[in-house]
C-alpha cells in the first residue's frame, strides 16, 4: 500500500543502516581476528583466562539466583496487596534503578554498605570490630541484586497481575490455603517466565562492566569485560585482550541463543478499569510477612538512592558545577549523548520503516525476507558484541593512525548509539507499527505521500514515541562508563569518567556531588521518557 518510491526509500535506508552497522562491528571483529592471531589463540585457554571465565559465570549465576529468589516473595506480596499503602510509589521506586547509571548506583551502595558506610558505622558503634567488606564477590553480588531485584519484581508482578481476576475469587471460593494458591495459581504463572527473567538477568550480570570495575576486588574478582579493560588499559597486552574478547563473544552468543528459546517477559500490564480482589492473606501472620518483605525490598532499593542524595548534597555543588572540569565534561557528555541518541533513533526509524516496506510487498522475495531478518537482528547485535569489545577492536584500528584520543569522542558516540539501538527499536517499533496499521489505507486512498504525509500524518502521532526513545538513548549514553573507559583521558572526559577518576583519586566528596548531578540528569530523562510513553498508551 506504500508507493513504489516510499518502498524504495524505506529499503534503501534500511540497507544503509545495515551496511553501517556491519562495517562498524565487522571492522572491530576483523581487527581482533587479525591481531597476532597465533599469540591470541595460545592465550585462549590459559589458567588465567579460565579462572576469569569461571568467575564471570559464577558471579552471574549467583547474582541471578539471589535476584530471582528474593524478587519472587516481593512480587507475590505486592500482588497479594493491591491496596497496600504507597504501592504506586513502591512500583515507581522499583523502576528507578533501571534508569540509574551503574556508577552512581555503585557509589550509593558504597555509601550504605561500604567501609565508611552507614551500616559499618552502626556496627562499629555497636562495638563490632570487623567491618563488613563490600569489595570482591560480595560487593558484585550486592550491586547486581540492587539493580536486578527491582527489574525481576516488575516483570514477575506483571505476570501475576495479568492473571484473570476470577482466579483469585475462585481460589477463595474453593477455600484454597496460601500454599495451595501458590501451588495451583501463583507458581504455575511465575514458572512460565522465571527462566526468561533469569536468562535476562544472567545476561546483564555476565556482561556488567562498571559495577565489577568499581566493586570487584583485584584479579580474584574480575569478569571478562573488566579483564579486557585491564589488559588494554594497564598492561597493554592486546593478545590477552583479544583472547578474552573471543571468550566474551562466545559466552554472550551462547546465553542469547539460550534465551531465545525462553518465553519473553514484559512489564506491561493492562489494569485499565480492572479491579483485583484478593481475599487470601487476610491473616495477621500473612500481613506481617508481606509488610516485612515489602519493607525490606524498599529499604534495600531506596537506601543507596537516598545515600547518593545525602552524600551529594554534602558536597559543594555550586563550586563543582562552576568548575572548568565539570563544564568541559558536561559539554562533552551532552554532545556525545545527543549525537548517540540522534544516530540511534534515526537508525531505528530506518530499520523499522525498511521492515514495514518489505512487509508491504505482497510476496517479498528471499533477498527481501533475508534483509528483514537481518535488520531485526541488527538491533540486538550489540548484545552479542559488548561495547568493550567494539572499543577494543577500534582501539587497535585507530592506533595505527596516530593519537586515539582524537577519534575517541566519535567512537564513544557510535558505540553508545549501538548500545541504545535495541531499546530505541523496542520503544519505536510498536508505535510505528500501530500507526502504520491505522493510517496506511486511509493515507493511500487519499493519495497523501512523501513530505506531506510525514508532516500531516506521521509527525503529530510519532513525536512522542520519538522523544521517548531519544530521552532513553540520551540517558543511557550519559550514564555509560563502559565505552568511554578505554578512551578516557585528559583529552576526553565525560561525566561518568569524571566521577570515576575523581573517585579513583580519593576525592570522595566531589565524586558524591558529581554522582548526584549525573544521577538526577539520567533519572529525569528516564522519567520523562516513561511519562511520555504512558500518556501515549492512554491516548
Amino acid at each position, binding site marked *: 500500500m506504500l508507493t513504489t518510491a516510499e518502498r524504495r526509500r524505506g529499503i534503501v535506508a534500511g540497507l544503509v543502516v545495515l551496511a553501517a552497522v556491519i562495517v562498524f562491528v565487522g571492522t572491530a571483529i576483523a581487527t581482533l581476528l587479525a591481531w597476532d592471531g597465533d599469540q591470541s589463540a595460545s592465550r585462549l585457554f590459559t589458567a588465567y583466562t579460565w579462572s576469569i571465565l569461571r568467575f564471570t559465570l559464577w558471579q552471574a549465576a549467583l547474582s541471578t539466583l539471589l535476584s530471582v529468589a528474593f524478587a519472587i516473595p516481593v512480587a507475590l506480596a505486592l500482588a497479594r496487596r493491591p491496596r497496600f499503602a504507597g504501592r504506586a510509589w513502591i512500583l515507581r521506586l522499583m523502576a528507578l534503578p533501571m534508569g540509574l547509571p551503574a556508577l552512581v548506583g555503585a557509589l550509593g551502595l558504597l555509601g550504605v554498605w561500604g567501609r565508611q558506610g552507614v551500616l559499618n558505622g552502626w556496627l562499629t558503634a555497636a562495638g563490632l570490630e570487623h567491618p563488613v567488606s563490600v569489595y570482591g564477590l560480595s560487593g558484585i553480588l550486592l550491586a547486581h541484586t540492587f539493580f536486578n531485584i527491582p527489574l525481576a519484581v516488575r516483570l514477575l508482578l506483571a505476570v501475576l497481575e495479568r492473571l484473570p*481476576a476470577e482466579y483469585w475469587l475462585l481460589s477463595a*471460593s*474453593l*477455600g*484454597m*490455603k496460601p*500454599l495451595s494458591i501458590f501451588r*495451583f495459581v501463583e507458581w504455575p504463572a511465575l514458572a512460565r517466565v522465571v527462566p526468561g527473567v533469569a536468562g535476562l538477568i544472567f545476561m546483564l550480570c555476565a556482561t556488567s562492566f562498571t559495577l565489577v570495575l568499581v566493586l570487584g576486588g583485584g584479579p580474584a574478582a574480575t569478569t571478562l569485560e573488566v579483564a579486557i579493560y585491564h589488559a588494554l588499559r594497564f598492561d597493554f597486552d592486546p593478545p590477552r585482550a583479544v583472547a578474552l574478547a573471543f571468550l566474551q563473544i562466545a559466552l554472550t552468543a551462547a546465553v542469547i541463543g539460550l534465551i531465545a528459546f525462553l518465553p519473553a517477559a514484559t512489564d506491561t500490564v493492562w489494569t485499565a478499569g480492572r479491579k483485583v*480482589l484478593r481475599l487470601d492473606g487476610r491473616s495477621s501472620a500473612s500481613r506481617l510477612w508481606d509488610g516485612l518483605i515489602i519493607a525490606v525490598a524498599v529499604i534495600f532499593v531506596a537506601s543507596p538512592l537516598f545515600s547518593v542524595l545525602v552524600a551529594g548534597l554534602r558536597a559543594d555543588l555550586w563550586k563543582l558545577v562552576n568548575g572548568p572540569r565539570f563544564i568541559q565534561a558536561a559539554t562533552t557528555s551532552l554532545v556525545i549523548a545527543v549525537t548517540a541518541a540522534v544516530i540511534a533513533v534515526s537508525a531505528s526509524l530506518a530499520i523499522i520503516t525498511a521492515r514495514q516496506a518489505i512487509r508491504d510487498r505482497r510476496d517479498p522475495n528471499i533477498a527481501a525476507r533475508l534483509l528483514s531478518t537481518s535488520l531485526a537482528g541488527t538491533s540486538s547485535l550489540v548484545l552479542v558484541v559488548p561495547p568493550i569489545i567494539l572499543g577494543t577492536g577500534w582501539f587497535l584500528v585507530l592506533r595505527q593512525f596516530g593519537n586515539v584520543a582524537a577519534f575517541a569522542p566519535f567512537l564513544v558516540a557510535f558505540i553508545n548509539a549501538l548500545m541504545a539501538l535495541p531499546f530505541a527499536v523496542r520503544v519505536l517499533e510498536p508505535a510505528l507499527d500501530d500507526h502504520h496499521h491505522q493510517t496506511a489505507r486511509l493515507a493511500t486512498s487519499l493519495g497523501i505521500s512523501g513530505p506531506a504525509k510525514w508532516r500531516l500524518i506521521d509527525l503529530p502521532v510519532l513525536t512522542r514515541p520519538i522523544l521517548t526513545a531519544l530521552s532513553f538513548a540520551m540517558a543511557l549514553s550519559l550514564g555509560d562508563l563502559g565505552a568511554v573507559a578505554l578512551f578516557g583521558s585528559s583529552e576526553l572526559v565525560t561525566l561518568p569518567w569524571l566521577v570515576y577518576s575523581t573517585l579513583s583519586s580519593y576525592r570522595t566528596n566531589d565524586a558524591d556531588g558529581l554522582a548526584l548531578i549525573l544521577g538526577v540528569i539520567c533519572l529525569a530523562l528516564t522519567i520523562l521518557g516513561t511519562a511520555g510513553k504512558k500518556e501515549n498508551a492512554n491516548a
Partner: protein
Amino acid sequence: MHDGIVLDKVALTLGKTSFAFDCRIEPGAVTAIAGPSGAGKSTLLNLIAGFERPQSGHILIAGIDQTLSHPSERPVSVVFQDHNLFAHLDIFTNVALGLNPSLRLSPQDRDRAENALVRVGLAGFGKRMPGSLSGGEKQRAAFARALLRNKPVLLLDEPFAALDTDLRLQMSALLLDLHKENANTVVMITHDREEIARIADRILHVEKGQIATDEAKADYLSRFAAPVSALSGTV
C-alpha cells in the same frame, strides 16, 4: 427463619457508587438478577458469595448469619462468565479442586470427580487442558465442579453470555436438570429475557444500586411484549 438468602438492609459503597440491598431470595428456586449495566448486579452477587463485605446490614444464608464469613465457609458455589478454569491445570484437576482445595484425593474422590464429568457430558475430557475446550465445554466443566461441591446455593454471573444461541439453550437445559436433581437455590445474573423466560422462577430487577422490583416470572414478563410469554409456556 428464612431458608433461602436474606440480605437485611445491606449497604456498601465502592468508590463513588453506593449500594443498598434488602431482599429475600427463595430457597430451591431459580432467581434471575436483571438490570442495566453498572446497576450493581455483580455487586449483589459478590455480597452473597462473600467477595465483598457490607459496611452495614446482614447476610443470612439458610438461617445462618454469613455477613463476615470467608467465601469458602459459605454454602455457595460460583460460576463466572469466563475464566472458571485455571488455564494451566487439566480438566480433571480443575474439577477435583472442588472436592479438596489442596488436591488430596481418595480413590472415592477421584471416582466422584470422573462421575461429575460424565454427568455434564465431558466423559473422557479429564486429561485435556482448558485451552483445547470450546466455550460451552469449559462452562460444563465449571458445572461439574459446582456439582461436586454440592453446595445448597449456586451463584452464576452471566454464565452463558459468551456462548451462541444454540449452546445457550443446551446449557440452560443442563442447568435446569442439575437444579431439579439437587433442589438447590440458583441465583443467576442474565441480560437475556428469553433465558429468564426459560429458567427463572423469580426476577430481581436491580437499578442504581438498589432492588427496583422483586416479582414472579409471569408478572415480570407480562410487562414486556407478548412473544416472550409464549416461550415461557415451554418451561
